[in-house]
């Protein structure tokens, strides 16, 4: 009953003109940025993060959540219409979505992805509401356990999400190190500031996130000389009952798959959408139509992606651990407004917590309402020269970085971060661990130092004195062994002669 009462309270606060306006603005901004070729939800949310500074905690979170959903749908539009996925998770949508566009059925592909996304997001929302009860369990966790859980989440993200473990670890380490710059929170001793007073306050998360995730995307597109020329026909933006019937199974399976994969910290969205696609191909009556414009090939992965996006909030809200780059950026939006997601959010500020949860559903509904009627507007947006889009985006990012502290050092840091992000992309170093450790680094160090103080400097007891820690580190060891085994067997397999 507490849950339902909390949710009702949240909806009563969200369903007022001001929050609805922020949700609307967020959806529009999200779709606008998501439509920029190659821009995914993480780049879009990073770019628009400075907006969170100028609004209060609740409006900024509502807007960021709406930006997230809007940019996801914006990415779908570019995947379907011009075969440019906003992020890796949307690559699979290109396969059948773009084929449908070639057949003049782009409107149908976009409509079914909007419907699937709405259903997936709504069902996952119900799961999210009831999963918040996990936070009551998490209230009793101390610094040792929180340190262990954070290490576990980071290890999953670094180890399971990408091919190269070593490069992932380097990325995570660099993110942690950026968080060390500035005054030590306990002793006020300067760390790694090189005597520069501008660095005494530390390096702002937003500035680095804009650079590494947003600016690097644009610089990469420029270096790759991406030119977009869309002059195709969208067709009618609607689906028939027959299409809905054909896609019902894909939407149902996509919802379940996305919800459960989103619960795991570090579960990559790309793996979920690819699994969904393979699942649909296996269940299909006519698997030979896949790759030639099968509607299930769009409905399944898009539903999975949105359900996963919603259930990704569960580890964030219940434990305070972001499970993806976008969630790390949203965590940043919480922290710059003085909120700390996690179990204590429901204890200290239940109103805010439930308002945020309710706003997720409102953003989902708003996106569904706006997506289909406005498809032609977003399509027209694709006809704006890419040059102008990139130029406007770079200008917005630079001014956004400056506005964080009204200091040129932040602009410089953003550009350096952009170039580092570009180098990381070129060298196949994943940026997700860096973004996550940027946010989690200070929390991790804080818990580490508290735990050391509690255990009076005994590092062995810090690691193994509680049952929760033993279980977590034990599981981590097992996963590490599995990873090493898969790497070993994968190498053996790749060295075998190719027969297929």
């Amino acid at each position, binding site marked *: 009953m507490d849950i339902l009462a909390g949710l009702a309270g949240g909806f009563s606060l969200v369903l007022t003109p001001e929050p609805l306006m922020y949700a609307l603005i967020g959806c529009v901004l999200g779709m606008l940025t998501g439509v920029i070729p190659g821009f995914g939800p993480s780049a879009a949310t990073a770019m628009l993060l400075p907006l969170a500074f100028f609004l209060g905690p609740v409006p900024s979170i509502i807007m960021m959540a709406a930006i997230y959903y809007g940019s996801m749908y914006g990415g779908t539009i570019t995947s379907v219409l011009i*075969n440019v*996925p906003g992020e890796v998770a949307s690559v699979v949508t290109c396969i059948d979505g773009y084929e449908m*566009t070639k057949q003049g059925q782009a409107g149908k592909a976009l409509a079914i992805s909007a419907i699937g996304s709405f259903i997936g997001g709504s069902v996952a929302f119900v799961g999210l509401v009831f999963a918040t009860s996990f936070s009551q369990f998490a209230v009793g966790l101390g610094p040792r356990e929180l340190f262990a859980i954070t290490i576990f989440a980071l290890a999953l993200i670094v180890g399971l999400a990408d091919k190269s473990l070593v490069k992932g670890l380097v990325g995570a380490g660099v993110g942690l*190190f950026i968080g060390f710059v500035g005054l030590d929170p306990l002793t006020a001793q300067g760390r790694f500031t090189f005597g520069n007073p501008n660095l005494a306050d530390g390096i702002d998360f937003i500035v680095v996130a804009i650079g590494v995730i947003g600016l690097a995307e644009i610089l990469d597109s420029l270096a790759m*000389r991406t030119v977009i020329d*869309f002059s195709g026909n969208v067709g009618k933006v609607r689906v028939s009952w027959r299409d809905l019937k054909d896609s019902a199974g894909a939407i149902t399976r996509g919802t379940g798959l996305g919800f459960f994969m989103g619960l795991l910290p570090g579960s990559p969205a790309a793996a979920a959408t690819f699994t969904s696609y393979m699942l649909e191909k296996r269940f299909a009556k006519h698997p030979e139509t896949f790759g030639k414009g099968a509607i299930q090939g769009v409905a399944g992965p898009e539903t999975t992606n949105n359900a996963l996006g919603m259930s990704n909030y569960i580890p964030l809200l219940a434990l305070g651990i972001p499970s993806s780059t976008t969630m790390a950026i949203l965590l940043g939006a919480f922290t710059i407004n003085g909120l700390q997601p996690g179990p204590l959010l429901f204890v200290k500020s239940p109103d805010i917590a439930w308002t945020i949860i309710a706003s997720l559903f409102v953003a989902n509904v708003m996106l569904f309402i706006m997506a289909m009627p406005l498809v032609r507007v977003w399509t027209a947006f694709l006809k704006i020269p890419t040059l102008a889009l990139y130029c406007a985006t770079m200008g917005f990012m630079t001014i956004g970085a400056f506005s964080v502290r009204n200091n040129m050092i932040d602009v410089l840091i953003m550009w350096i971060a952009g170039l580092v992000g*570009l180098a990381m992309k070129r060298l196949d170093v994943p940026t997700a661990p860096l973004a996550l450790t940027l946010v989690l680094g200070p929390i991790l160090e804080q818990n580490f*130092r508290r735990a050391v103080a509690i255990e009076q400097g005994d590092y062995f007891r810090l690691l193994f004195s509680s049952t929760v820690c033993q279980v977590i580190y034990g599981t981590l060891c097992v996963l590490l062994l599995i990873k090493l085994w898969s790497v070993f067997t994968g190498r053996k397999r790749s060295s075998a002669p190719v027969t297929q």
Partner: protein
Amino acid sequence: MVIDRMAALVEGWLTAADAWRRRHPWLNGDIIASTLVLVLSVYFFADSVRLGLSNGQQAAPGTFPALISAGIAICSAIWLIGALLKLRAPDEPDAAPSPAVAQAEDGDNGAGDTVLSESANWRVVFLLAWSALLLPLTETIGMVPMLFVYLLGLFVVIARSAIWKSALVIGVVLLVFAWGAYEGRIYMPDPFRLGRAIHNLLSSLTGGAI
């Protein structure tokens, strides 16, 4: 025409530099990046030790950074060794291109196609070199003119087309941003007071409505 020739000249230099780099396989990105990270992590480890590793029964300011920098040093050493071993190994066949990348050649695209050029390494080198100009330019001419010069340079050398259109688009967009920042009380370095000038101009044009 002059700008076009200059752009071609820069491209020629950078292509030559790229070709020289290709003749020296040890100068690959993995080796350079891993060495750089290794050197930095050793430096930061030493700095962390200087900050202190133990503070009685509590962790000192340098404890956690020392642990992390040691971890980065180990990982970057493994990365470096892996990159050096790869130099000896025969080349692996290229991976299949992603659906987004596997598209038509330059200038031969139909509706909805994406055009991506080949290696583009020289453009990355140019991006790095050109970005070094950011800070000195900002301090002397202000943020908006700096962005104008920077973005125009990028589009002239990289996009190599519609230079005058680019200049116009970039100029207009940046002037809008300068005005927006002024109205939003974001006071950027602006020695020429562009934001204020646009504000005054708009005020006089609209009879004080803006």
